[in-house]
């Protein structure tokens, strides 16, 4: 950043009073050069930081990826791919359940705030939901493991007894309630605000004329929403859900504090043997890790980084396409 500025200054020693480029070109003052250099440099610095995140992670992950499987096996780590796969599965599986619970509820909340709640209350209610986003994740973790897990444990027993024929609810239910489903509930609560606030924005952008036209034709409020609001907002909802997914995939503390996960791959979500997530396994093991183990965990972080990057970039692409082609206004 600083080097960019200095180099531009060196090229132009001092601003001359007469216009150097002839009468057609505007005067470029020293302050202007410095300022535009600084601000452009900051913008470029962001790209550099993002590249550095990928680069440094790759450099530190390299030993774990290139060390021969025998050496890794001898140190008790196992080859990287078979180490990461169960945790990748856990990450996807927990996020799936979190989305399953969060998406309908948050779309409902967004509709409530944008189309159902009294106008005067709507802004205040939106702020209440935003409060959820302000709670630090470590507090969610504490709440999830000490308060939520014992509270939902009877429900798990009930699910297991009466719905145990569904593969998800089968197996020996956990006695503590600290299961994958509990972690998914906490994740769902944490991604609720982001999905809600983004879909609410889109719902509010629905052209008023579309809504009024539907109502004037005799549609009920729900018919108006299904005919005018939801089709208009479809792309916005999809990208909001993807951003929520990105948040759920990378969320660490809630899962790390609720689950005592293991490296297993199965579909059951009520047992005490739960697949751990990549982020949680890094958080739980990193403080005590040394040597190759550190490299292996960083390589795991790299995998997580790539997954969330793809999900987020996809969501942003949908948003930008949608901005270009939406028929609003």
């Amino acid at each position, binding site marked *: 950043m600083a080097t960019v500025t200095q180099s531009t200054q060196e090229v132009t020693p001092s601003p001359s009073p007469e216009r150097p480029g002839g009468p057609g070109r505007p005067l470029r003052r020293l302050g202007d050069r410095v300022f535009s250099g600084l*601000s452009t440099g900051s*913008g470029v610095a962001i790209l550099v930081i993002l590249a550095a995140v990928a680069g*440094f992670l790759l450099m530190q992950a390299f030993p774990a990826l290139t060390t021969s499987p025998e050496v890794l096996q001898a140190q008790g780590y196992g080859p990287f791919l078979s180490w990461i796969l169960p945790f990748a599965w856990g990450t996807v599986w927990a996020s799936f359940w979190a989305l399953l619970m969060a998406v309908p509820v948050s779309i*409902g*909340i967004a509709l409530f705030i944008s189309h159902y709640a009294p106008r005067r209350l709507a802004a205040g*209610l939106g702020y209440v939901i935003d409060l959820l986003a302000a709670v630090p994740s470590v507090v969610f973790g504490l709440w999830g493991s000490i308060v939520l897990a014992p509270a939902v444990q009877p429900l798990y027993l009930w699910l297991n007894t009466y719905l145990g024929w569904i593969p998800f609810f089968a197996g020996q239910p956990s006695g503590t309630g600290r299961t994958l489903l509990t972690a998914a509930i906490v994740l769902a609560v944490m991604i609720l605000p982001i999905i809600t606030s983004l879909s609410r924005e889109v719902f509010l952008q629905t052209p008023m004329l579309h809504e009024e036209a539907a109502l004037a034709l005799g549609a009920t409020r729900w018919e108006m929403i299904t005919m005018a609001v939801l089709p208009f907002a479809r792309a916005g909802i999809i990208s909001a859900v993807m951003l929520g997914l990105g948040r759920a995939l990378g969320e*660490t503390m809630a899962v790390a504090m609720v689950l005592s996960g293991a490296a297993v791959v199965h579909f059951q979500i009520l047992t005490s043997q739960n697949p751990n997530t990549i982020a949680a396994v890094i958080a739980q093991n990193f*403080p005590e890790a040394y040597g190759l183990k550190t490299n292996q965990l960083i390589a795991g972080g790299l995998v997580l980084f790539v997954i969330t990057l793809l999900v987020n*970039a996809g969501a942003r692409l949908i948003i930008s396409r949608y901005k270009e082609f939406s028929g609003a206004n």
Partner: protein
Amino acid sequence: MSTATTTRNADPLTAGQLPGYTTWVALAGSLLVAGMIDASLLGGFDPGTTAFLGAVIFLPVAYLVARVVQGRRAAADRLATNLVTGAFLLALLPLLSLLWETLSQGLPRFDVTLFTWSMRNVIGDGGGAAHALYGTLYVTGIATLISVPIGLMTAIYLVEYGRGALARGITFFVDVMTGIPSIVAGLFAYALMAIVFGPGTINGFAGSLALSVLMIPIVVRATEELLRIVPNELREASYALGVPKWRTITSVVLPTAVSGIVSGVILSIARIIGETAPLMIAAGFTNSINTNPFANPMMTLPVFVYDQYAHPGVDRIFYNERAWAGALTLIVLVMVLNLLGRFIANRFSPKTGR
């Protein structure tokens, strides 16, 4: 209900409509039935089960009543209204439960000792989070010092200078950067320190670097939005007086938006002050006060909460109490920052005249 509708049939405007109190009557009736089922059949009254059962009874009952009296479309509308309202109430449950538990379990240890003692040589009862408060102050402060200039200048670039591919690319990657998982930011800071200063370099500054990666995009987003709503007339008036562009930005654009920028910065501090995972990795754990961010691990408040919960000693209750008290402190801090940010934004925002 049927009597109410037959007597009202005289009025053509309300004929075939349910009276306004139908929902409340149905809700109260459902809850009553649910409570009785819960108390008699399921062994013991429990508010949670009753509320859940009540909702299960209420939704079809309200639907059927509307279906009989008003018809299919109105019934679907009523069902949707009830579901949407229910979704909102459902989301309030975890929020209220979390706030209540944090308050009730955190208050016993929310005392002077918490803010004046560290955990050095403390086993069991006593001790506090002073070391973590110092750490949070240093780490967040340095992260703010790094992020605000970069974020602010980037926002200025995007609004005032940015054209073409570079600006589009920066906008896109700032958005992508907001989605970086916090733990990856921590791993990045650790990897950077390991390569530059040797493996295992863990200190407060590394934590600040990790937080900066998370904070910069938030600052860019917040300030960019603010700079864009500065009216163009102000810039044009300034150019018309012959003021150079950079002077226009520093003495016209920025002062107009300053209250929003300050509040945006405060809100972004509130967003990152609760980050745990990156600090665990980059800034580490310690039980002592460390006021040098460039050497040795530095405890921070969120990591303190995690540490007390995850690595308890004998008599777990003391450790849990400290964890809740730390959580309460953290929530109070975040709420105060949020309110302060919103207050500044509302109180000092320029009047745009419309």
